[in-house]
């Protein structure tokens, strides 16, 4: 599925994420966080993980956050931009005292905002004053979602104060033209609104103990009301689809069968892209199966601090997604491709699930904290996932031999691949990666690729992965520790004493690259065949299952569909290059939401009328949906 393609949308107020109904799988690209604000948000996020990754917390302050547009880390940045003491923060980290860390970091942020507000009032030059107000506002963003969740009235009051402050700093104009003097009285009044709130809520001497670290204002916490700040990912996170987008090969589609004629598959396709089947926080963050396994392949860019040790890896049984399933082991796994899934069982990196159905349920319920899926949902998901095919590769025959299209080096490598080695127990690479069995043997082997978890442990066996399509799924091994196929060859050569020459290593690598290659690995887009057109086509296909569900009066599954698809369709409109076409798509999404509303009300006749209207409108809009 394709749902996370937003290229240029940015927004800066975390509070802006707060107010929507069904989760959508279209994340917006955030405006860059200032280094100190980013470190604070990372501290809150990491501080809620159990066990608390103190090294990561320290790195949040001493290293630039991942993909930061600022080269400086937060401490260096503070040293350059601020006179605020970082001693209490460093002390809390050294003592590994979570509550002190929260208190020191929160006060530091509040003091930074105060510092910038003070600068705005101290300077005469409107441009510098505006810059200081802008910086203060960007720092306040670190608290904004907490204030919005706890106290909408205060959030509004402070929002207006920022507007007042911006407006009253005046303008230097250009070369004397358009000069507006600052209105100091208004500036002071507006600043006081912000400063008073900070003093009461974030510049507190003794913060009440925090069960959960969040930007919730102190007064809200002391009120005793149960207020939840909507989950958010910290700076440095990346849940966007990779670019270029992997090509999805579905068996039925390659045979010319229309997905709308396969309602169970289409419904499963929808579920694969629905965050609604998971629990919070995944659901609220728009994380779906397709977030990690985009287009049945892997999302090499996915990264969540504290849960990923490198891009394309995630610890799904850590503290973040479902605390009850937290295994308290820092063991993120490289995301596996799901291509050819019906040939690659058993499932899980160590092959612990013989049944794909059991594995899928485990993902939904345990890893991501979702409700128990219905049998229909599991049937649908399986029906869809079992259609995932390997990428066609003209360098390979059906039984896994190289064709004439492969290079001479690859052919020489093919011989090495099939050659028995003493270091492999007189077996060859092909013994496990069986060429006429999709390059796997459906068994788990311990090849010493993982360190034993404890002395004497026999727990390092992993399911043999296929080699098909692997040219596009780097890095390699269960933990993604080897960056290239050449590194994999080197690893085997060294650890298994294969005694390969340089030339043989190069040839074997060429062979792996040929086996792992594909004729068309990625989707191609152009001016009208856009990512949105693809999304539109998929979403309307999902919706087509209503044709089957409406006559069955299957309210539960219709609502799951309308909640997912209406929200996604509306959100995806933001990615359209045909900007003028957006209102039609919004109206279409609204029509689908009306189907859901009618079903919710038990008014099946109205639901059918809205559904008919949706189908007609979708047909009309289709050519403009790009």
């Amino acid at each position: 599925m394709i749902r996370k393609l937003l290229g240029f949308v940015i927004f800066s107020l975390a509070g802006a994420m707060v107010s929507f109904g069904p989760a959508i799988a279209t994340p917006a690209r955030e405006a860059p966080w200032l280094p100190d604000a980013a470190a604070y948000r990372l501290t809150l996020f990491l501080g809620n993980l159990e066990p608390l990754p103190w090294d990561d917390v320290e790195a949040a302050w001493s290293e630039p956050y991942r993909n930061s547009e600022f080269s400086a880390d937060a401490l260096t940045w503070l040293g350059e931009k601020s006179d605020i003491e970082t001693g209490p923060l460093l002390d809390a980290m050294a003592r590994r005292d979570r509550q002190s860390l929260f208190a020191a970091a929160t006060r530091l942020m509040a003091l930074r905002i105060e510092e910038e507000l003070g600068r705005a009032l101290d300077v005469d030059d409107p441009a510098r004053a505006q810059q200081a107000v802008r910086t203060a506002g960007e720092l306040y963003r670190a608290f904004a979602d907490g204030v919005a969740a706890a106290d909408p009235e205060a959030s509004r009051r402070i929002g207006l104060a920022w507007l007042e402050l911006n407006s009253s700093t005046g303008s230097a104009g250009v070369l004397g033209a358009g000069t507006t003097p600052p209105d100091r009285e208004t500036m002071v009044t507006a600043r006081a609104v912000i400063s008073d709130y900070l003093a009461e809520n974030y510049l507190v001497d003794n913060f009440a103990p925090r069960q959960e670290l969040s930007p919730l204002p102190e007064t809200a916490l002391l009120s005793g009301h149960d207020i939840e700040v909507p989950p958010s990912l910290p700076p440095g996170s990346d849940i966007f689809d990779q670019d270029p987008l992997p090509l999805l090969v579905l068996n039925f589609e390659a045979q010319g069968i229309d997905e709308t004629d396969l309602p169970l598959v289409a419904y499963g396709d929808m579920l694969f892209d629905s965050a609604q089947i998971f629990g919070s926080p995944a659901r609220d963050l728009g994380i779906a199966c397709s977030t990690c396994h985009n287009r049945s392949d892997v999302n090499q860019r996915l990264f969540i601090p504290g849960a990923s040790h490198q891009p394309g890896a995630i610890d799904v049984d850590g503290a973040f997604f479902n605390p009850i399933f937290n295994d308290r082991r820092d063991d993120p796994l490289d995301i596996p491709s799901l291509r050819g899934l019906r040939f690659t069982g058993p499932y899980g990196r160590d092959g612990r699930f013989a049944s794909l159905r059991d594995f899928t349920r485990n993902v939904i319920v345990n890893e991501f904290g979702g409700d128990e899926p219905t049998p229909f949902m599991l049937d649908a998901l399986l029906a869809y996932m079992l259609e995932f095919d390997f990428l066609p590769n003209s360098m390979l025959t059906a039984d896994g031999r190289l064709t004439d299209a492969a290079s001479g080096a690859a052919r020489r490598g093919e011989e090495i691949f099939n050659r028995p080695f003493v270091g492999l127990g007189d077996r060859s690479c092909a013994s496990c990666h069986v060429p006429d069995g999709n390059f796997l043997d459906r068994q788990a082997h311990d090849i010493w690729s993982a360190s034993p978890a404890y002395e004497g442990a026999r727990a390092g066996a992993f399911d043999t992965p296929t080699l098909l399509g692997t040219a596009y799924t780097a890095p390699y091994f269960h933990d993604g520790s080897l960056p290239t196929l050449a590194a994999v060859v080197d690893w085997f050569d060294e650890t298994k004493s294969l005694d390969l020459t340089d030339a043989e290593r190069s040839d074997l690598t060429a062979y792996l690259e040929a086996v792992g290659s594909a004729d068309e690995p990625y989707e191609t887009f152009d001016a009208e065949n856009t990512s949105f057109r693809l999304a539109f086509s998929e979403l309307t296909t999902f919706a087509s299952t209503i044709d089957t569900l409406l006559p069955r009066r299957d309210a539960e599954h219709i609502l799951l569909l309308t909640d997912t698809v209406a929200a996604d369709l509306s959100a995806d409109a933001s990615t359209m290059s045909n900007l003028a076409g957006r209102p039609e798509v919004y109206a279409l999404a609204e029509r689908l939401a009306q189907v859901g509303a009618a079903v919710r009300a038990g008014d099946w006749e109205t639901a059918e009328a809205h559904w008919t209207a949706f189908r007609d409108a979708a047909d009309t809009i289709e050519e403009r949906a790009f």
Partner: protein
Amino acid sequence: MWIRLSRRKTLILSVAGAVSLGTRLAAQEEGLRLAFIPQENPEKLLGDIAAITGWLADQIGVPVEGFVTIDHAAAVEALRNGDADISFMGALPFVLAEAEIGAVPLLSEVYRGAPNYTARIFVRRDSGIETLADLGGKDIAFADPISESGYLYPLAEFVEAGLVAGPGDADAFFGRIFFAGGYQQAMQAMAEGLVDAAGASQYADLLLTPQQQAEVIWIAESEPIPSHVVIAQPGLDADLRSRFVDAMMRLNEAGNRDLLRYLYGPDGYVQADPAAYDGVRDMARRYGLLE
């Protein structure tokens, strides 16, 4: 103030690193100095500047140095005092710079096929506001008082509609007028319900979250506004100017288009047509910014 700041920034932010400030003549012999206006993050802009000035230096055959100024005014000041030869600029500051220091337009940015865009008045879909007249007594956020699409042109829609007598009389029509500091801030203020409307670039709704975009509509659109422009100080050597323009035009070639993202991300450039700015000049006069 501007001059001091601009020079300090030049020294701190110099991409070439080795080029010190000198006389006008010396500067031209040494190469080109480009002033950039910050958008979100001046530090990121520095990285972008390094990439684009390196490429331009290769293309033009002279050292090219770039630096970030605090705002448009500082960039114009840099052109006037000789700190910069060329600057990236909005259409309104350009016509002011043209009037004051004889700045020359060289290239116009192209977005979605045109070197112009519009300003719009945005409101929340559920606000019940359908016409400009509905905004009488209500609050509006603009981007900045020295902004063509973020103030002058959207306000002119109200003048055109007979709701506001002239640029100085807007207070009588609206409840409150805010200058939020930028398109995004103005749009956020509207989307979050802090104000009833926002006046900003036609593309400003793309700065909202996907969900917010669905909740926002526009009720008025201005006449076309020339897009942002690359301008030169009038004394810039004609040959150097021409080589710079040629190099910039090569950014439109398929192999070079990736570099556009280092330059505010337009779709390309066309050579600027000075007459295209007549509307902005008129608008600036109406607002009393230009004599």
